[in-house]
Each structure stands twice: as structure tokens, then as C-alpha cells.
């Protein structure tokens, strides 16, 4: 009998709290598979963040440190200073990374920290009930922009990959989407590359994953995936922005 699918050893069996159709579970799984394939599970120190993934410390078989809101890149830089030979990565949502933590995000990239950052962008503050985030796209309705984001009133969304790819310290910057299987496989390749960069000491690597949040979009999971594909990717084009 041959094994055709097996759960990775990075994630444990704790029941997840995520809503049906949420992309976080998928994103965790891709990270877990990559760490396992690269034989890095035992070398990894996970830095979690505030938001829907804030209970991540319960889900992984790794040493895990939860950072305050937005501060994960700073915490990770502190961890990496002590353990340069270990794999240190942050897992952050868009409220955490692009809003309150944009300063730490830009500075860690500019310093060229040898870290991996996995950025789950679902275009809203999910945990607090779907408020507008810096990543909310024009026209998207949220609980703090009920008639849809109006750039003249609420400002424009931040393309984090576009921003980071301008920095000399950022070496690998890529954006994928988790709305269907081919794109999920593409995302996994990027995640793998981002961890390989750190393993080889090549510096800061960043992967943005466009994620579906059906609960806050008030959509069925399939509709939410379609919305990511049709609407989000227009504002956030997929691809590798930088590879040095």
C-alpha cells in the first residue's frame, strides 16, 4: 500500500477555530508541507500575530511566540538575532501587517533581515468583525465602510508586494492566491522558495497569499473564492515581484 496523502508533522490535531471556507487553514497547511519537505520542522520558530490566526500557537508542533499587534517582524528579528541558524518566520494577516505593523514590516525588509514573512491578505480585519483594512479594495463593503470603500473618502489600498519590492533589503517578494487548486500549487512553490531563501541565508523573503473570508464578505465559500479571483486579483496582481 502506498501513501498518497499524509498530514504534515508541523501542524498538530487541535481543532481549528476558523470559519467554513476560510483560507487560513489552507495557508497553514501549505507552510506545514513546505517545512516538512525541506526537513525544517524541528528547526523552525514560529512568530504568530494578532488577528484570526492569533491562536496559531495551539496548532503547530513548533516553538511558537505570539507577537503583539503588528510587531511580529520585530519579535522575529529578536529571535533570529539569538538563533541565526534556526528558521524564523512570521505569519500575519493584513490588519496586522499592512495597518498597525507596516512600519515594522518595511523596516525588517529594509534591514534585509534573513526572515520569511507569510502574509495572509483577506482584505478585512477578520477577527474583530470585518472592518475596513488598508487592503480593502475600492467598492468593497465592510462594517466601517458600509457603502463600499470610496478612495476619495477612505483612501486607497496598499499593495504590500509593490511597496516591499522597492526595497533593496527585500530579496524575494511574491503574491499568490488561494482561490483554486492551480493557484494553491503556485502559492506552495512560492512559500517553498521563501523558506529556501532563509535556509540559504539569502535574506528577506515575503509571500502574500490572497485569502477568502466568506464570513465577513457575507458570501458562500465558493462565492468568496470567485470574488478573490475576479475582484481581488485585479487590485493585487499575482506573480513574482522580485527574485534576487
Amino acid at each position, binding site marked *: 500500500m502506498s501513501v498518497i496523502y499524509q498530514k504534515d508533522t508541523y501542524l498538530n490535531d487541535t481543532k481549528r477555530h476558523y470559519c467554513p471556507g476560510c483560507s487560513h487553514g489552507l495557508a497553514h497547511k501549505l507552510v506545514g508541507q513546505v517545512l516538512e519537505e525541506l526537513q525544517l*520542522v*524541528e*528547526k*523552525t*520558530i514560529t*512568530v*504568530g500575530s*494578532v488577528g484570526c490566526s*492569533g*491562536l496559531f*500557537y*495551539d496548532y*503547530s*508542533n*513548533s*516553538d*511558537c*511566540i*505570539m*507577537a*503583539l499587534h503588528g*510587531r511580529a517582524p*520585530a*519579535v*522575529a*528579528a*529578536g*529571535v533570529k*538575532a*539569538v*538563533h541565526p541558524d*534556526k*528558521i524564523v518566520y512570521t505569519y500575519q494577516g493584513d490588519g496586522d501587517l499592512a495597518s498597525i505593523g507596516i*512600519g*515594522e514590516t518595511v*523596516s525588517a525588509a529594509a*534591514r534585509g533581515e534573513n526572515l520569511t514573512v507569510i502574509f495572509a491578505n483577506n482584505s478585512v480585519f477578520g477577527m474583530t468583525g470585518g472592518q475596513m483594512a488598508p487592503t480593502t479594495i475600492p467598492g468593497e463593503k465592510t462594517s466601517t465602510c458600509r457603502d463600499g470603500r470610496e478612495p476619495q473618502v477612505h483612501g486607497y489600498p496598499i499593495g504590500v508586494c509593490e511597496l516591499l519590492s522597492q526595497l533593496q533589503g527585500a530579496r524575494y517578494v511574491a503574491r499568490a492566491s488561494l482561490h483554486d487548486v492551480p493557484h494553491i500549487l503556485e502559492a506552495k512553490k512560492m512559500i517553498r522558495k521563501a523558506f529556501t531563501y532563509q535556509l540559504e541565508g539569502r535574506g528577506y523573503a515575503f509571500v502574500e497569499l490572497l485569502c477568502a473570508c466568506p464570513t465577513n464578505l457575507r458570501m458562500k465559500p465558493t462565492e468568496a473564492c470567485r470574488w478573490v479571483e475576479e475582484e481581488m486579483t485585479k487590485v493585487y496582481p499575482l506573480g513574482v515581484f522580485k527574485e534576487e
Partner: protein
Amino acid sequence: MKKLMKGNEAMAEAAVMAGCRYYFGYPITPQSEVPEYLSWRMAEVGGVYKQAESELAAANMLFGAGAAGGRAMTSSSGLGIALMQEAISHTCACEIPAVYLNVSRGGPALGCIQPGQADYYQMTRGGGPGDYSMIVYAPSNVQEACDLLQLAFDKAEQYRNPVAVYADGCIGQIMESVEIHERERDPKLPPKSWAATGWDDPSRRPTGFTSVFMDPAKCERHNDHLQEKYRIIRENEARLDTIDTDDADVVLVAYGTTARICMSAKRIAAESGIRVGIARPITIWPFPARQLYRACQNAKAVLCVEMAAGQLYDDVRLALNGSRDAGLYYRLGGMMPRARDICQEITKLLEEA
């Protein structure tokens, strides 16, 4: 061997000699010589100096390095310490050792760059969320600042809690003769088996440092555990230095540079036959309340002197617990009390007593 050194540089060297190998900081007067010194000194000893993008980041880098098992510190002044308060609360909640140095200036807010002690509330009460506490040492000269800073690293690891040294700007900027010894980690301290080092040892559980609890009953248990630790710290770590308090006419209560000025006031008062005792808290948290209560019982008058508008005074009154009155004399905004002015206050107080 004694060496003439500027306070900030001496404290930075003391940290290195106590095994600190990770420093995260951000420039702010009057402490900038600390990051300047450590920027080259850490490289010499194989440590890491990282200039953070803000005090927010510095405090969170410190948290990360501490959680990873490193002996780490940061330093700042009042405004920067204010930005670190959330991280201090989180570091306490996650039980991570870390050392903070506040070389404080006059406030409020931007205030001025001259010495101040108006961060007393900020240091002892904290500005972060929730019930948390940390040991705060208040040295009154450069040698003591170096010794207490070195001790702070062991105490942080002993209690798995942040420890702060609160030195006013005068201590940071003054040049004094100091002797800095290499201080090894206390051999009685257990190994850091709790640290996040990568989970390659299945005999232990993976670490999960967090301050969030979805279940309030669990959160309360966590709080009870922390409070029990703070009770033990209160019991064991409160320190008061007393000089001639037993037969004093007046007891001056002061810490830091102000306590040194009080020594001058004591000498001047002695010329007029007034016996002055000095009660100097070395820890301002935990506050040496019982020791201070005893030290003040025989005097005709008690005078609290500080560079803050009655912040230490609050703790003095709590310690005296209504058993007697205490006077207050202060200067603010970077101006320091003068010994002769303190003497005048003493005379006034004795006339009223």
C-alpha cells in the same frame, strides 16, 4: 581597576560584563551614549546590536530575543519608555526575562533633556494593559547603576520577568570613577529550558508564548499565577538604604540623584545642629514600605524630595499609612532641587512640627 567613565557608557559596559549579548535601541537624549557604545562593543564580544526603527520595535525585538533565551536589553528615556509599555505588559504576561534601562528626563511628553524623575508612575505602575509588575531599581550614582544593572539580568531570569533600572539623566551624563567587574550568570539559576530554540527535543512540550486567552477562567488562573509571583517578589526584593534615620530630627525620603543632593543637605543642616536622616528606596517597585515605615517612626518630621510633583510622595504616604504626616519638596521640568533649598524646607517643617 577604577576608571573614569560617563554614566551611560559605564552602564553599557556593565551590561556587556554581565553577559548581555543582545541590545536593541533607538536614539533619544539623554541615553544615546548607550546605543552608541554598544554599537561597536557588541561587535567586539560577538553580540548583536540592532538599531530599531522605533522604541515600539526595540521593545518587541527585546521580547523576541528574551523568548529565544538570549540575555538582552534595551534603553531609552521617558517618551520612548512610554512607547514600550504595551511590550512590557506582554513580556510580563508571557514571563520573558528582559532588562530595560530608563535614563529619564524632564516631562511631560517631550519636556526637556535635563534630568527628571517624573517617570515614577510610568515605571512603578506601568502604562500597559492589565495587572503586571516589574522590579525597578533606582540607583543614585554611576557605580550603583552599573551594579544594579548587572543584578537586573539575574533577577530577570530568576523571576522570568522584565526588570528595569531607572536612572535619571544626571546619572547617565555624569562622569564618575567606577569599577566594572565581569559578573557571571548566577550558577544557582536553572537552565532556560522554557526558551524557544526550535522544537527538536520531544521530551518537552513546544513553547507557546502568548498573552491571549479565549477562556476567561484560564485567563484568571494565569493572572493568579502572576500575582503569586509578584507577591514573592514583594516579599524578597524590596530594598531601602537608610543613613542615620534612628536618631534623626528629620528623615528625607528620596531616590536617585535627588538622594545625593539630600546628602549635601544633610551636611549643611548638621552645621545648624539639625540631625538629618536619609531613607533612600533602592527598589521603587517593590516599594520598601515596611522598612520606610520603621525608618520614619522616630523623627520629628518626614520630607519627601523628588523631581516629580509628588509621585514618590504617593508611595511614601501609602507606606506611612496615616501613622504620621510627610512634607513634599520638588523641582520639575529638568530643574534639580538645591541642597540649600531642601534645608530651608527642613527648617520650615521643624517649625511647624
